[in-house]
């Protein structure tokens, strides 16, 4: 996951504690090979499809592989293995096999890598039954959920932005499991659901509104599949106002799915006092130039305006 100190520490700890864990990467840390051994820390050729396929085969046989695919875009090189096999084997085999596999990758960070690689493709995987999709929005949550992913008995796709997950110190442990959302900041007036790095601007915006006397409840769903819809409903029923933000774009994003599920619940729908507000990235590929990248990503200003629209509306 490239320079994500605290998360790397989690993977190494699990490697040392559980000899079923193996780590597959194109350039694993030398220190890990020395501490754990070449048998379980595998230096791989650049073959994402086979790395994931082999991890599926090894997971079926009792290992707990972690495949680090570097950037989220590289997940797309392994779509067949992820969507047609890892996701389906437990169900299709009638439970004869499970696939305890974790695939990690970095979402957009401050590398500004290039057009082909800055990508937030996690929503694509939400259409595939059998996959668990984790997109944490803070370092403490990322560390806890990475450990939980590695101990989970099914395939987990772990997307983390270096913006939220950078840091060397290991944060305090907190009780949190896969499939649980977290109220990152309690509030009463508006529910703000943010995914991944959008949590950073969501928390900023919430703090700004607090100075104006508006109490914004920020929720990080953390696990997008299976979604903790109950926690999200409770918040929206309480505040009556809903704003959703993420960096991804397109016609079927994760926040769109969340909004639809909330609106489809009669109690939540009845509690809404304003139309939900969506703040997304622009529907274009990520451009290379920094100024253009900034224009494509959702900004704190856009999010603040969305919260204000929600507050102004009344029904």
């Amino acid at each position, binding site marked *: 996951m490239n320079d994500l100190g605290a998360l790397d520490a989690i993977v190494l700890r699990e490697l040392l504690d559980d000899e079923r864990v193996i780590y597959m990467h194109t350039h694993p840390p030398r220190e890990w090979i020395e501490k754990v051994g070449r048998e379980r820390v595998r230096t791989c050729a650049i073959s994402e499809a086979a790395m*994931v396929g082999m991890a599926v085969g090894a997971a079926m*046989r009792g290992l707990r592989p972690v495949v680090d695919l570097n950037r989220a875009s590289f997940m797309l090189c392994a779509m067949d293995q992820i969507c047609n096999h890892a996701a389906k084997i437990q169900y299709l085999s009638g439970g004869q096999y499970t696939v305890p596999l974790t695939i990690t990758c970095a979402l957009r960070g401050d590398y500004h890598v290039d057009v082909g690689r800055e990508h937030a493709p996690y929503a694509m995987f939400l259409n595939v039954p059998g996959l668990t999709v984790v997109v944490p929005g803070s370092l403490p949550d990322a560390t806890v959920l990475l450990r939980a992913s590695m101990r989970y008995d099914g395939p987990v796709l772990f997307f983390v932005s270096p913006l939220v997950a950078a840091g060397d110190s290991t944060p305090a442990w907190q009780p949190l499991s896969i499939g649980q959302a977290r109220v990152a900041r309690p509030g009463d007036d508006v529910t703000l659901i943010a995914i991944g790095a959008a949590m950073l601007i969501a928390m900023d915006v919430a703090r700004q509104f607090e100075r104006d006397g508006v109490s914004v409840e920020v929720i990080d769903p953390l696990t997008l599949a299976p979604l903790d819809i109950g926690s999200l409903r409770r918040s929206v029923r309480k505040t009556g106002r809903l704003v959703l933000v993420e960096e991804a774009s397109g016609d079927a994003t994760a926040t769109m799915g969340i909004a639809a599920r909330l609106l489809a619940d009669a109690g939540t729908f009845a509690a809404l006092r304003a139309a939900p507000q969506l703040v997304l990235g622009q529907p274009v590929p990520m451009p290379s130039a920094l100024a253009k990248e900034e224009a494509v990503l959702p900004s704190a200003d856009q999010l603040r305006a969305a919260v204000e629209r929600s507050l102004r509306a009344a029904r």
Partner: protein
Amino acid sequence: MEADRCKGSAQLTDSSVSNEVLADLYLQMCAIRHVDEWLLRLRAAKLFVGAVHPCSGHEAIAVGAGAPSGARDVVVSYYRGIGHAVAAGADIRRLVAERLGLQEGYCYGRAGEFVICRDARLQFTAAIIGSGVAIGTGAALADQVTSTGGVTIVFFGDGALGAGIVHESMNFAATWALPVVFVCEHNGYQDHTRTEEVYPSPSLSRLAEGHQIPADLVDGNDVEAVYRAASRALHRARSGAGPSFIEARTYLRCFHLQFDEPPPPYRPPDEEAAWLARDPLTCARHALLTRGAEGAELAAIARSGQERVDVAVREVLRSAGHPAAYAALAGRPAP
């Protein structure tokens, strides 16, 4: 006549395959042929849905490569896999039930043709060409990491060599000396396309050798030749020397796949006739006759393999609520 056509078997006969083993391989091949014929009949009668990819013609590879494996080894198959499942020791009743979508099937009818039978060491049956090669190579990785001494046998067709993931997997297997045996059932066609039209050379062994994996080109219709090649490859894998590639030249007796009815002919009739004359069951039978077996004895073996299947099919049809179907279909000619 028959002796000439099956010359390969007769010439290669040596002490490595005993008469008893060869007779058992022949029995298994007869059972597989019979399952295959039953599945085509049952599908034509619309007793289940989806496609049947018949394996008739490939029996010697399924049986010859599977037989030398042991309890620690696993098999990864692909959609033309009913022979691999039977050779691995899967219960024919549960295999047929799986195809019929019944709860009694290995996967409760969820997997159909892509059956998984853990207790018969069949870890995976790939629906997507080439995908099983990666999964089987990963199974071998698990065996290496945990030092089980087990070997994974991965079956695939010649079409799989067009898939990038197969080459990626072979690269890993060779680099890490993984305990895996790649068995390519080279029948000359991928779907209805001749393999020589889409590959630079008809030699698939050269592709494996490009990955520095030792390759063995064998007559895939000669069960003894396959058995011996697989024994060598299993020994090599178990000793830690790494993967092997077996290119088993063969031919489909019927066709690529069938839905409600067989597809129209798509291969040159003279090519079909030449291969049918070298049918793997005929060759195995001939090898046994050469070793002194009696014709009546061999007929009894064939009947015994077929009866195992008939009993299973009858039971499954009865429990599926089609008690009359067995009698109605049993007499129908197979393709």
